[in-house]
């Protein structure tokens, strides 16, 4: 779409904040202010969501394979966000089971894989980070 969705959405959010919120009070002003902040988050997420989910799914699938858990990639990649998120949920659920099992072991391989899982989880929160977040 032209103009680009992130740019148009960010502009819309700024207009809501500058032109509409001051015309309202109390609960309604707060709702519109939150709505504008959500549009900012949509703008931020729109361009990166598919890429970050694709990257994360690949990374988690690799960690699971190292742990002996095989979750096959779809034969024909479906790059819609809803499909990538569904795949992400399947992979992250399996990752919880794997990490739980690793925590019961006390060997070098288990500790190394657990450390790599934590590194990937840290990367995942950086990928998902929202600019307006407090932390």
């Amino acid at each position, binding site marked *: 779409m032209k103009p680009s969705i992130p740019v148009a959405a960010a502009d819309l959010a700024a207009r809501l904040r500058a032109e509409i919120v001051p015309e309202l009070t*109390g*609960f309604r*002003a*707060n*709702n519109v202010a*939150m*709505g504008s*902040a*959500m549009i900012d*988050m949509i703008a931020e997420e729109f361009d990166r969501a598919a890429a970050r989910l694709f990257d994360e799914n690949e990374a988690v699938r690799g960690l699971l394979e190292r742990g002996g858990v095989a979750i096959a990639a779809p034969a024909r990649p479906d790059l819609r966000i809803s499909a990538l*998120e569904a795949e992400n*949920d399947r992979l*992250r*659920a399996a*990752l*919880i089971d794997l*990490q*739980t099992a690793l*925590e019961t072991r006390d060997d070098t391989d288990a500790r190394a894989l657990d450390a790599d*899982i*934590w*590194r990937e*989880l*840290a990367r995942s*929160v950086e990928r*998902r*980070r*929202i600019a*307006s*977040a*407090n*932390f």
Partner: protein
Amino acid sequence: MKALTEADMTAYLAARFPDWRDVRIEGLHRLPLGASRETYRFDLGYSDGEGAHSDRLILRRDPPVSNVDSDRNHEYSAYRAIHGHGIPVPRMILLEEDPGPMGGAISIAEDLRGYHNSEYQLQEPAWQDKLPHIAGQMWGAMGRLAAVPVEALDLDFMVPATPESTAMQELDFWEATLDKNDVGPEPITRAAIRWLRRNPPPPAQKLAMVHGDFRAGNFLYDDDGNLIAVLDWEMAHRGDPLEDLAWSLARVFSFGKDDRRSGIAPREDAIRIWEAASGLTADPAALHWWELLNCVKGQGIWNSCAHAWTTTSGEREVIHAYAAWWLRNAQDRAILELMGHL
């Protein structure tokens, strides 16, 4: 959900208080406070045998779906329990648990008007010089709450707890909340829960009435930064007073987007003020456990927001979707920091 109207309010109060005459409700409007309950402000006028009366009041109403598992009776009783014990709170006036008349259970309290509660206002330049004083007020009040002898309070409406049981009781509650409001796998939060179970804290130094959501945004302050009243007691419970301190230190409430906790003071200052006011010690390991527990609690609340927004059959609350979008990843990030993986 049934809209709250001045006509319905007038009819309800006239029926509830048959001795009142000329009951008038004016200026009823919803306030932008909180994600879990509806809050309204209004003026009440009436006459009785003692003459004419005019009151400024706050009404809280339970919604059909909330992100916090509480109810009107619990918060109303919590305010009444702590009132008069050195922690300033608004006076509770009326509880109506029957959802019929007003479209949901309601409580009515005095409205302490003319004060501030915004956590974001405190980030404006005009307030920066007042922040050390506000820190003393906030963590001082929190410390005094921790020091109140729990035996002196009427807390029969709360779940029993002991210094030995409270930690795992809270962890069980918030894990169950996450299970009940599942919005997808949470590897970071689930890892935190497993760590908390493997590394239990020592018993609480004492049992206290824990506010449960004591942070900037949940107290009224005046133009000089004096704390006027502590609000939002719906999650109050018996527990370890370190829980309140830990909640106030949460990264997700660093409204200045820096190291100041609650956007008000550095962590060390907050702990020092709390220790001086409470007479208790914030053991670093125990405090760390409660900070991580509060991350699980936070994620439970933010996921409940997402779940409430997704599952409600009625009117959705914008704040439920907003809070979930804004806070869930920040909460994960806070867990990583506390567990040494950031």
